[in-house]
């Protein structure tokens, strides 16, 4: 270990270990979430969900993944080759980069960059590009409509997302997530900023295209939205990115509003995962209860309701801090 560290420097070694850890976590998290989604959906709809495959259907996601691995990958003739190939790859970059700054535990963070939250927000708008590429590249009318809708939705909900996080930064005067979590020793920020938490959560659900905002891949209108033309493993990558995005949104909500890894007696990492998966469960719960919002209502909610509310909240925090 020591001579390895001395060769490439202690810092680089920590990064590589972090990288492997993050990759493993992403894969395991995707498997758990696919299984949980089908089980939660099942129980919510008075049926049991996958039960035959493993003890409690646990091997079902592995069966899905293997089956997708064994599926042929078709590239339709009339498709714009470069865009079509790059889209699934590009969607994965923001997913992995966001994991750098998320503090799983007091010491368990890959590299605490002092402009942490900016990195996540900058890269999260990158995923919008890949959806546009997928939609435009696959030369399919449904995919094009799905892509256009997802861009309008993402830009509409990016601003309330930023504005919801601003009051927290005001209170802690720093971007790096670790200091924000430390600042929540006494009382979690959710009690200072309940409105900001709600705005953030709604914008987060909209950012990951989950019902009731899942217009880009609305089954009943656009057949399968922007990934209509993708088959086999490429389609699985889109799914993988969506589930990991869901986890990232809830992880950021936890670090900002629910006091990251602080908790009375359990070790930090357990608290962090517990809170995150609780929020992920709420997102899934939303999916199976609400009908879909129409496209112009979706935009109106953001421009007419969320952004003014976020402004008012910002002003109130600004004023209170001054007193």
């Amino acid at each position, binding site marked *: 270990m020591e001579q390895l560290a001395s060769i490439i420097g202690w*810092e680089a070694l920590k*990064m590589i270990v*972090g*990288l492997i850890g*993050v990759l493993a976590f992403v894969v395991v998290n995707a498997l758990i979430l696919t299984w949980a989604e089908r089980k939660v959906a099942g129980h919510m709809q008075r049926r049991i969900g996958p039960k035959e495959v493993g003890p409690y259907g646990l091997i079902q996601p592995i069966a899905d993944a293997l089956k*997708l*691995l*064994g*599926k*042929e*990958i*078709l590239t*339709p*003739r*009339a498709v714009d080759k470069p865009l079509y190939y790059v889209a*699934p*790859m590009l969607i*994965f*970059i923001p997913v992995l*980069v966001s994991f*750098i700054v998320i503090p799983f535990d007091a010491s368990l963070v890959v*590299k605490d*960059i*002092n402009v942490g939250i900016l990195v996540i927000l900058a890269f999260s708008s990158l995923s919008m590009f890949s959806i546009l590429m997928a939609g435009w590249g696959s*030369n*399919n*009318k*449904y*995919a*094009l409509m799905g892509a*256009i809708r997802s*861009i*309008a939705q993402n*830009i*509409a909900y*990016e*601003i309330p997302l930023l504005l919801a996080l*601003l*009051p927290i*930064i*005001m209170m802690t*005067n720093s971007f790096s997530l670790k200091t924000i979590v430390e600042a929540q020793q006494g009382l979690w920020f959710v009690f200072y900023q309940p409105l900001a938490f709600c705005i953030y959560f709604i914008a987060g659900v909209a950012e990951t295209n989950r019902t009731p905002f899942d217009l880009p891949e609305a089954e009943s209108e656009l*057949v399968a939205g922007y990934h*209509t*033309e993708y088959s*086999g*493993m*490429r389609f699985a990558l889109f799914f993988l990115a969506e589930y990991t995005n869901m986890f990232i949104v809830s992880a950021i909500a936890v670090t900002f509003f629910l006091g990251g890894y602080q908790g009375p007696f359990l070790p930090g990492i357990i608290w962090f995962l517990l809170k995150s998966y609780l929020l992920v469960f709420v997102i899934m719960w939303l999916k199976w209860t609400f009908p879909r919002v129409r496209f112009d209502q979706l*935009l*109106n909610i953001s*421009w007419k309701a969320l*952004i*003014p509310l976020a*402004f008012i909240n*910002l*002003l109130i925090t*600004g*004023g209170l*801090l*001054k007193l």
Partner: protein
Amino acid sequence: MNSLQEFAPVVLFSVVALLFTLAPIVIAYILAPRTKGARTLDTYECGIEPYGSAWIRYGMHYYIYALIFIAFDVDVLYLFPVALNYAKGERPEEFYALLCFVLILALAIFYAWGKGVFTWKRKFSQ
């Protein structure tokens, strides 16, 4: 130099992300059986071959949304440094600066609202 050093992980992670997505596609390419049909590579449109290509000028309405977004995103970015060193409890003039900045920003929304940008009116004879 050390600020560049901080962003090394970002570059490393994105390169690894590209490789991480490439691997399963290559595996699937090797493992999966092949199928060849006359219409396999046609674009999918509920079973009917589509009329006209999908790459055409699409609705104009979204252009206005893009304009408003740019205006707002830039303004919000200005707020970030303000939020960074927002001292608690003294120099009240910071709050007044913030107040008028945000009010001007809100003005843009009400202008767009009044102009009817957000109402998707129905276009039909009824």
